[in-house]
């Protein structure tokens, strides 16, 4: 894997990319949101104070999903009625970019799926079939963008309100439609038990082992 490096156009700190496919990163020091262009890094924004995180996952957490090990390199934070949730961006050892979502300690691993004629609007209980798997709309969430950290596979910094549709299945297969972009994005994957990911480099919690 390439480890391209550059300097932050804002504060001059060294910026190391953990993944060659990263399009956006955040300077660890000055919290500038930086976009990679062909030539250099361009500052497009600034991360405000992030909400205090209650996730046991952090940038640098490593785990195993299926046959691949992965490491967490970034995240997007959303807020909704029930608090915050994190979409942790990870890359696998074969260079695939994926997402580990942690919504109040309910975990799911998903990967971007190609354009699939996504519905404009959904209702709870509606059924959709992608890749021969039937999914049922279980939750529609109005959320708003709360912040970013680390490396992301696309530009993501000027969002406000976003709608997410979560779909479950009769197996553990799980799908999310992200309406923050046009056309919307589909992510397919599965809900996972915390233990099954065999995570390392987790945060520790006071009073808990």
């Amino acid at each position, binding site marked *: 894997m390439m480890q391209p490096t550059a300097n932050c156009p804002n504060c001059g700190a060294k910026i190391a990319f953990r993944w060659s496919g990263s399009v956006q990163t955040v300077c660890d020091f000055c919290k500038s949101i930086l976009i990679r262009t062909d030539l250099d890094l361009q500052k497009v924004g600034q991360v405000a104070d992030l909400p205090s995180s209650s996730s*046991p996952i952090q940038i640098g957490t490593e785990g195993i999903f299926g046959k691949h090990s992965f490491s967490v390199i970034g995240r997007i934070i959303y807020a909704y009625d029930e608090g915050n949730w994190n979409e942790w961006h990870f890359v696998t050892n074969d260079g695939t970019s994926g997402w580990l979502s942690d919504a109040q300690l*309910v975990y799911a691993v998903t990967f971007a799926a190609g354009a699939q004629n996504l519905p404009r609007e959904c209702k709870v209980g509606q059924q959709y079939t992608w890749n021969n798997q039937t999914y049922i709309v279980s939750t529609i969430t109005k959320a708003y963008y709360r912040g970013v*950290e680390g490396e992301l596979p696309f530009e993501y910094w000027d969002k406000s309100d976003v709608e997410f549709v979560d779909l479950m299945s009769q197996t553990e297969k799980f799908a999310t439609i992200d309406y923050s972009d046009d056309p919307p994005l589909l992510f397919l994957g599965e809900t996972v038990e915390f233990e099954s990911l065999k995570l390392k480099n987790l945060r520790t919690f006071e009073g808990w082992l």
Partner: protein
Amino acid sequence: MSAGGPTPAGAPQVGSLNCPGCGASMTVRSFGNAVTIVCESCHSVLDAQDPKLRILQQFHAATSEDPPLIPLGSRGSIRGVLYEVIGFQRRTIEVEGISYSWHEYVLFNPAKGFRYLTEYDGHWNDVSILRALPDVSAGGTTLKYLGETYRHFQTADAATAYVLGEFPWQVRVGEIARVSDFVSPPRVISCEGSDKEVTWSIGEYLAGRDIWKAFKLQGDPPVPNGIYENQPSPMSSNVKGVWTLTAMYLILLLSLAVGVYLMESDEQVFEQTFEFNSSGGGEASFVTDVFQLKGRTSDVELTTNAGVDNDWIYLNYALINQDTGNAYDFGREVSYYHGYDSDGSWSEGKTTNTVTIPSVPAGNYYLRIEPESDPNRGLIRYSVTVKRDVPQASFFGLAVLALLVPAGLVTWRSLNFEHLRWAESDYASPPGGSLLNSVESLADAFKSSGEDE
């Protein structure tokens, strides 16, 4: 360098805050995962996501009104994972004008997330959120999950009546949710729905004493009252056990019967044909030649074959041991009648009669026979056959019946348990309502307990 170095990955700490309602100090146990937190002193429902703990609701209740049996802050292991009790609520449903209440405990682990314990009248369930959707039948009376069939038990509107501590959702006193339960003891799958979200959860019946042990609680858990919707029937495992045992005994009995049958010599020791002149008058009794009964003490089978045709003969027998004088006295009648009437041909009785004399020791024996019949019926010819050591199937038949009694009893009691369970449901008996259904659910219990092994 404005923001002082890389993001600190410090250890989140248990928070301590003051309630904006009453100023009491509050412990925040879920590291920012809680959505609402309820002050234990003044019962203000607070927005846990707001740094200023905005008051969302206040409800009136004496703190002593409903103390949690497992105090907030208690820790215990459920299926190998350590959890802390962080929230507590009472929910109430109304069925036919009567209120029923149960309690829910919110359990928290900072990595594994949330889990719940519910308690109704001393019956406990360990509840977690489902990660896959159950397959609900078209009529909604059953659902399938992981190959197991659950039967709809009850649908009711549950109102939140009392809350304490932290919750990972927006909790309010007075809020109503429609809850449907589907049971397959010891499990229950529940659906809680609104038009925005449907949540499925699975519960497994737990004994109160196991919870008391896990959380190291003082005293005894409340004694369970009645039969709960997903309480495993103590009988259904017994049913399986008793039938297994019965089957084993039946096999044993059968092999015993076969063994005995092979061992019995079934030997004919005497056969002779006699004639009785009923017109003769005078003393008709006589004795036979001596024959030998060999081997161990065993039974003797005596068959009388008489040439009676619309006639009868009665024979007084005595089997006498020549050496000891011991006698076995018995009488046998052989009668056979037949003819025609308006209904066609008829017959009654038969020309043979067999009798078994049990436990006759070995020795030299003879028979004394005294025939009787109607006078002046002429000659009646009859033959007497004596067999030694004859297998007796009827004993085994009786043993089989005796064996089936406990199995039948336990099965009946189990059906009775199912009847009492379903009496509390939306149905008077399991959906479908027949005894056949109870038998079916029993068969399910059989199947699932078989799968456990």
